[in-house]
């Protein structure tokens, strides 16, 4: 990666290289789990469990009907909320970003809404919408939309003036201007917003279920905790972590695809 320490520049055996990469990737996690396993056999803390117990609990708790009853609805709401946020955030962001007076009128207001810690909107949503699935989705949207909206506005606003003039001079249609100029030009910022929205949405999915629910992942974890089902609770935390990781990976793949030009361009200018 760096210029330093490239003493061994001669091409090495491919197998060795792959083995080394794998070792680096799994070395620390394996070591950590090993230490954890050893430690758990000696620990007397009743709120911590060993990896074996955790895995058993995970299998028993989540593989089966609980997956369809608790996990899928949660994930479904999360995805609906996220996609709604992206759709609304980008659409509103384009309008506000393109129209300067509107932007100036709304800016302080939007800054304020973004600054509200999203979980405090849960009680408000419960008041206005009752305890329904719609409310949970609305809560997710009302928290996740701000980073997307504000980043889209910023990205649209910063669309290069020469690119815009090019579009005007070639009489490129409104439609093409939106899809082939403004949105692509703003896409790096939009993706930044979506990445932030991802973690906010996940937090809100969990919290809204801890508050007002009789099902769902968040409710289930809180339920296990209330009943001192420690291993099951840990398995829920693990599952949430896995969902977070999967979301991050999927996002990473999408981002790399959508922003391939951007990363390529940055690499070229850096070189």
């Amino acid at each position: 990666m760096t210029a330093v320490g490239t003493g061994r520049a001669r091409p090495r055996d491919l197998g060795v290289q792959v083995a080394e990469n794998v070792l680096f990737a799994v070395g620390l996690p394996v070591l950590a789990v090993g230490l954890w396993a050893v430690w758990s056999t000696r620990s007397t803390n009743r709120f911590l469990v060993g990896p074996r117990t955790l895995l058993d609990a995970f299998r028993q708790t989540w593989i089966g009907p609980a997956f369809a009853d608790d996990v899928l609805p949660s994930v479904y709401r999360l995805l609906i909320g996220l996609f709604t946020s992206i759709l609304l955030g980008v659409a509103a962001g384009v309008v506000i970003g393109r129209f300067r007076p509107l932007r100036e009128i709304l800016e302080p207001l939007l800054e304020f809404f973004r600054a509200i810690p999203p979980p405090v909107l849960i009680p408000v949503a419960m008041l206005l919408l009752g305890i329904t699935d719609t409310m949970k989705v609305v809560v997710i949207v009302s928290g996740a939309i701000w980073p997307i909206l504000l980043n889209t506005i910023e990205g649209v606003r910063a669309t290069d003036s020469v690119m815009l003039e090019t579009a005007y001079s070639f009489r490129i249609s409104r439609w093409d201007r939106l899809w082939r100029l403004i949105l692509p030009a703003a896409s790096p910022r939009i993706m930044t917003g979506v990445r932030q929205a991802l973690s906010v949405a996940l937090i809100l999915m969990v919290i809204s279920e801890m508050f007002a629910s009789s099902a769902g992942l968040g409710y289930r974890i809180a339920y296990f905790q209330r009943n001192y089902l420690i291993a099951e609770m840990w398995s829920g935390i693990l599952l949430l972590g896995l969902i977070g990781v999967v979301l991050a990976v999927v996002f990473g793949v999408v981002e790399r695809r959508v922003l391939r030009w951007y990363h390529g361009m940055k690499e070229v200018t850096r070189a």
Partner: protein
Amino acid sequence: MRKILLGAAGLLGFLVVWQLIPTLGLVDPHYLPYATDVFGRLAEEVRDLAFWRRVRLTMTSWAIGLTVATLAAVALGTVIGMVPFLRRATHTTVEFLRPVPSVALIPLAVLMFGLQMRAALVIIVYAAFWQVFVQVIYGVADVDTVARDTARSFGLTRAERLRYLVLPTALPYLMTGLRLGAAVALILAVTAEMVIGNPGLGRMIELSRSAGDAVGLYGLVVVTGMLGLLVNVVFRFVERRSLAWHQSVLADEATR
């Protein structure tokens, strides 16, 4: 000037719309109280020391959490960022732990620490840590290779390199991380109070909700928004200053 006027007009317009919605009966005032009532209540609240005590409690756990997270992130981030071996070895672990939503740890924190502030701190620190840590790693990795080689060829020690090369480069990144971390820490400070029930603004929100006190609830939402805004503004200012300093230092070096 025009911007300020338009912005103020926007805020005013929002307040008028808010006031009109219950006035016109679009939404029951029990669920969406009048803006005037909410701000009236707020005006009362800010004269109540108990209110400020709650603000202090929330901001104390925020400040402690952010400080602990930042110190840990800077220490770990600098070490891991400077040693390529560690960077490679920790990569998967970091990528796995980072997206874990910190609220997932709330039940665990409750079991471990019950109602103490420490339960909230666990969650705040976990969330804020990654924001700062990742930026510090970026910052340390951003040290110019030429500058690094120069430093080596002049025989600067590790400590000197850290002091004169790595820290100045990483500082703006750190400030960005700090801004992001501060916002996240506030979200979780309030969330923890709502869910765990340790005292502060968050618990007050939960209490207002369970007492059916919509006016108080909306007032507190406004207050948390203001706090969030304050945190954003202050940290953005600090970040901008640090960037300016950074660039002016570079310019200085160039003219010398």
